[in-house]
């Protein structure tokens, strides 16, 4: 049940991100929407990894070595999400850098101004 809730929130976040990226005119808002979409994807990744009433796959006093396979949550999505988050951050950083350069050269942040090359 829990993973369905988390999954739905993740998917909703992706939709909101998509909607924001397509409707807002301001570049910064577009970048925020894209990072929102990224976060949504990360939440979906974590939701997929959830196992019914499972705990974190860390062997310590709370979770013994023998019972780990039964009660641990799937470790692979968590490992993937760490990498995905860092990539999401990297891409957002590059987008922000370009937004700054665009503002420097064009003195406007609206996406309508980026229409030089067409056809």
């Amino acid at each position, binding site marked *: 049940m829990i993973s369905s809730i988390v999954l739905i929130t993740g998917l909703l976040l*992706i939709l909101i991100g*998509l909607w924001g*990226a*397509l409707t807002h005119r301001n*570049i910064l808002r*577009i970048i925020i929407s*894209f990072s929102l*979409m*990224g976060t949504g*994807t990360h939440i*979906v*990744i974590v939701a*997929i990894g959830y196992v019914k009433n499972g705990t974190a796959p860390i062997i310590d006093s709370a979770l013994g070595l023998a019972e780990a396979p039964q009660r641990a949550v799937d470790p*692979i*999505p968590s490992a*993937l999400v760490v*990498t*995905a988050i860092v*990539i999401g951050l*990297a*891409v957002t950083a*590059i*987008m922000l850098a*370009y*937004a700054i*350069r*665009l503002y420097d*050269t*064009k003195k406007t942040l609206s*996406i*309508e*101004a*980026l*229409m*030089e*090359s*067409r*056809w």
Partner: protein
Amino acid sequence: MVGSLLHPLNIFIVGLGGAFLIPLLNRLGSRWVASAFIFALAAMTLMSGISLLEVLNGSPPIDILTGGSKPPYSINLRAGLDEAVFAFGVNLVGLIGAYYFLREKYGTILIYLLLIMGIQGMVMTRDLFNLFVFLEIVSIATYGLLSLRDTPEALSATFKYLMATVLASNFFLIGTILLYATTGLLNIDDLIANQQAIAGPIGFAALIFLLASLLVELKPFPANGWGLDVYETARGDVAALISGGVSTGVFFALLKLLPLFEGQLEIIAAAGVITFVVSNLIGLQQTTAQRLLGYSSIGQIGLLTIAACLLRLANVDSATFLLIAGGLFINHLFAKVGLFWLADYVGKARLQDWSVLKSRPAAFLAFAVLLAAISGFPPFPGFWAKWQLVMVLAQDERYVWIVLILVGSLLEAAYLFRWFGQTLHGPVESQTARAGSGALVPIFALGLLLIISGLITSNLAGLNSFWPLIPLAAGALTLLIAPCPAWVQCLTVLGMALLGGGWLISDVTGLNGLFAVLLLAGGVTIAIASLYRNDTRPGFYPLLAVLLLSLPALPRASTTLEFFFIWELITLSSYFLVVRSRDAQRQALPFLLFSLVAAFFLLAGFAILHADSASYSLSALRTAGPNSAVVFVLLCVGLLIKAGAVGVHVWLPGAYAASDDDVSALLSAVISKVAIFGLLVGTYVAIRSEVSLQLAHVLGWIGMLTTLAAAMMAVCQDDMKRMLAYSSMSQLGYIVAAIALMSHLGWVTALYLVANHLMVKGILFLVAAALIARTGKRLLSDYGGLAGQMPLTFAAASIAILAMSGLPPFVGFGGKWLLLSAMMEKGWYGPALMTLLATFVGFLYMARFIQAIFLGPRRPDYADLEEAPAALLTAQALLIVGILVMSFFPKVLIEPVSRAIDPQFASTLVWQGMSLEMIYGTWNPIPIMLLAVAVSALLFGLFWYLQHAGLFKDMARRLARNLSPLQRFYAFCRTAFGVLTPPWASMFWSRVAVTADDLALCARSIYTGNGQIYSLFILYYVMALYIAAGGLRYLWP
């Protein structure tokens, strides 16, 4: 130890280690950074080269393990044959391209190195999430490199690129995790192994997301506006990396995951073909160089996708798959990257400003080589790959795909060579292209690589004999002696032609042998005339060498592949010869396009032949397969286009008239015979099957129609060379009709006429060349009374005219008479009548040619005109000797001809006689001659009467003010025939061109330049894929 040192895993260690070291080395100085950069790239190229060699001579795909354990637990990479070829190609280009980045800041060098390493990773990794990481490395490296050009357009284009690729990588991530949700696996091999687990809405959505993200990264048609803007605005070498490197990585990722998309192969191929055709269509409307290259590169990737999917559907063996996919990829990679570097070197955005390239002949040669490679001309890998692709598709009965691919390639050749024409004929600015010829070295390296890989792919594709490459070798040799004076080059070319040609035709027997001798002798004699010009003509002599040697090589071809290879070589070299002349800019492109269409028809015909008889040999044409009628029609259409039949003749007069004088002589006398030889080879099959006989009848009618129409149009011409062009078109009509008779007598006539036409047209065009060389004027009305000044030329011209018109005692009469009797024998009364009519109209323009130039009052300003140049006269003399021999000793030609054709037909005619009279057997010549003269006199009188009776009174009166009665008569004929031959053909073809341009205009209008619209297109593209793949069943509960 050495083995482990050169293990492909070290590619990534060197790549990453090198990248991390570069900032440290930067403290020591930029020289260190540059050397470390070159060392790292060279090491990576060496390693991928070694692994390619290992895999080539048989070792199993090299597995690379990481993390110290077996694949399902840790990530593994693989360097199989396909991976090694793709990786080595990209590495090579990366190493050569590093030249442009040596002086950049260390940050750029670092990113460049990681980009190349990232592409290797994408090609070799076998883990899905690792593929995502490498995809991100490549994308982020591209974002970093795109910032090198800091103009506002570049920044906005990059931002659009960012938005699209972030969207695509998010879809990839969603696809990966949903796939994990259904299968619990990340390793690609495991995923493919238990593919049936990927089911239900989640599995389906996962596959579609994965597929969509990879396709979007390949910039498919509707959703690639962002890609084009980046190609247009990025720096040349960065755009080269994107089109060459990044697209390779993404394409190979798609190739790797194809087994997962078994159900959607048709859809992916459809997406590829739409992209290929439409981007090439829009290419017609482009004005900036890099955007045009962007369209072409996106089109080529589309073609690669088609090839990958259809080959998988036809489940071909891995060698053919590598030949086609590898060939197309290598072709695209080297040619496109070279052109982007050239764009950087020229530095001009607009197409027409590229004429500055002419100031550097070497760069211009590279430009031509790269363009020819992209449009799939021999000897480059693209040609062999496209040939093999069409063969496989025909076997798989995918005819619609063949048509679409050929249409796309035609469009691509159209805008590429229009660009070449603009560059060649554009105004030459004073300042040369940006200095620094060092930047040219990488481009030459790519040109060389293209040729080498072309040769390698050629023997992969089954061309295992060496002789078809002799023409190219000769061309290259002549290129080396370019600095020598003109006559030295011309003599060497003639020498090589005689030597090579002699060897080529030495062991060719039967009809082919005859044609080989004819083509070689005709070509060399007419080429002697080229000695009359001793101005330096850059590039003329190598092309002449290629042409002269490929002509005799054609009859030697025993397989369809060799035939097609030589055929394309002739087309390519003749196009370059035509386009060289100044006023040929508008006529050269139609010449090329129609020849290409002809070549594509041939290709289609051969493909279906191969599909039928599963053999490449030309002799397969002899046996009637299930759809030999289709093969017959395709071959005939192609060859008729090349022979300039009426309706598709619009290219002929322009090309013949506009090219240099000696080239037009070669074109009309010798190269047109190539189409005739093709007809002889192609129409054997007609003898076997009944339906082809009816088709042959139609062919006959087309031939006669061409003759009549061309003759009438010839009369209307005032330009000397255009008139001769139309006249050679009408003579070809005779020959086509003769072949169409499909009888022994018919084919003997055909060969007889071929020899006659070659000699006659050679002389007439050389006469025209002499006249233009001396007076510089081209219009018949400018001439008059030159008989006195140029007696020899006058004599040669009159002999040729007499021979051509068919009046005895010269060879023309024999030909006409044989044609008439053959038609009578076959019972074709209609065409026979038209022959007579055409002969009469022929008298008109031939007489006009002599009368207008040599007879009549001499113009005052031609008083001091001396005789024609010696070279032209010697060539004409040789041809006249040929005519005389043919007229008085016909057995010299007829005997071997009938022997050559005997096996195919019942031999109806036995030749014992020596001289002319003996040949005619039952029909005595005298009455025939009288009949011919009487008929022409009658028609002559009829026309004279009509002219006096005032038909077209007003038009004649307007013309007739100061003309002599004869000129008034010709003016009247011109008006009469002008009415009879309305320009339907040229109107139709120009309307075709206009509709193509309009289609391109409305297709490109979807690229509005707005980043959000492009992202919306991407979303709709994903939706379209989902629905097309049958996703609706999941959406509708």
